[in-house]
């Protein structure tokens, strides 16, 4: 009886310990894309210093790499993995470019990358919505 109770608790804990769902991972991806966008916008408005903005963009890029790797390696059902992968690679590239344009002090080029990032954000949002509605 005790063994049975123990195994039920253990199974419940194991079930609860499962990795984050694709929807949660998409939330995290959207959160870090939005962080990069807000940071970029603040830098363009001279509301955030260079050092900080570059560090935050770098942090966003690294976290996006990690989360998207985890998400795509689990082959989430109902997700166009190829499309998601390509948009996330592109987003990370935009963020990397933004970081470089801060160093080069080139706001016009930075603004173009920021606009592209915003366009990618919309695509990611559509994919996230499709996962949400497919649940």
């Amino acid at each position, binding site marked *: 009886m005790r063994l049975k109770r123990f195994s039920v608790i253990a199974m419940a*804990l194991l079930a609860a310990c499962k990795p984050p769902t694709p929807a949660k991972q998409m939330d995290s991806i959207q959160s870090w894309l*939005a962080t990069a966008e807000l940071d970029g916008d*603040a830098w363009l408005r001279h509301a*955030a210093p260079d050092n900080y903005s570059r*560090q*935050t963009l770098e942090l966003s890029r690294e976290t996006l790499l990690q989360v998207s790797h985890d998400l795509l390696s689990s082959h989430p059902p109902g997700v166009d993995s190829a499309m998601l992968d390509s948009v996330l690679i592109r987003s990370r590239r935009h963020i990397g470019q933004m970081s470089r344009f801060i160093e080069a002090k080139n706001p016009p080029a930075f603004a173009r990358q920021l606009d592209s990032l915003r366009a990618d954000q919309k695509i990611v949002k559509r994919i996230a919505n499709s996962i949400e509605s497919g649940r």
Partner: protein
Amino acid sequence: MKKILQISLGIVTAVGGFLEIGSVVTAVQAGASFNYQLLWAVLLGTICLIFLVEMSGRLAAVSKHTIVEATRERFGFPFFFIVMIGMTLVAFLVLVAELGGIGLSLQILTGIGFPWWAIPVSFLVWLLMWKGTFGLIENGASLLGLVTLSFVVAAVRLHPDWGSAAHGLLPTFPGARKASYWFVAVSILGASISPSLMYFYSSGAIEDEWDESYIPINRLTATLGMSLGGFLSMAVLVVAALVFHPRGIDVQKFEQASLLMTTALPKWGFTLFALSMLFACFGAALEISLAIAYFFAQGFGWNWSEDLAPSRDARFCLTYTIIILLGAVPLLFGVDPVKVTVMSMALTSATLPLAIVPFIFLMNDPIYLGKHRNGWLSNSVVLIIILLSFILAVISIPLELIGG
């Protein structure tokens, strides 16, 4: 005139010293993830804190005992020892978080990573404790902390929908992310109801030689000071709800939180946030280190006073020296102060009954308080809120840990 000055200074220091990394991080996470929905937790925590701080001052003014001395005397050493272990562990985690908060503020200002600041910051905290007086620590740090009023300016400039915000003052059940919602609520309560603050406050009352004539001043200072402080926490939550929530930013890192005021105050918002965190965490690190040293010294019957020369209360000074040194170690290894903050605030909630229930017994003991004993209202309010936060903590901490 002297009393008016004392009251004003008390309120100003209470406001300036109210925010620290715990209250800011939990309020930012609440606003970012749940819009105004968790304003009620800040309100509840502030109400409880007003009662507890008033009681701490009253106990010291009437009985001439600090909470620690009275707990040990009334309940005996074995029970006191259990309380001491629990409170010291939680307070130590909070100290790590505050030292980390200073390091993170300097990181965003200078670009130099926070682990590099662990030793210089700890040394500076220790130096101020070693050389400074109680007045300098209590008033100096809190006056600098008045820069946190910029959160209110930012909230007003963002033109929040005050009706929706007022709605958030009433508890609601979340539609989704239930475990996360209750975990953040518990963390807010833990950040608001800090037993270390009570120990610090009652020790301060003894350091300042309060007597029964201070009871009205204490009541006014606790009520107005903590209310205005709670208002500051609410302002942080409101700004986060307006800046992060619509963008879907779930704040996990300090770098994200640092963008809090760049929308409302484009020119100075970033610097004001960094300075607010720097001064608030610095003041809190001093207070927590002192609170732990007071706890040990008063519990073991050593000499203690921040106003004495270190040679006259050597063991008291040795305690804060060791604690501050140990507090720097996790940061040197790059432990994320934000994660330590959130966990320490939730653990504070879980351990609240250990500190508060014996305190309520003391506050009803005629030997210590005479005619100034607690009434039914203060007993009920505090016990209900403590019980609520304990139950929420016991349920939500495992859920949050398991759910990652």
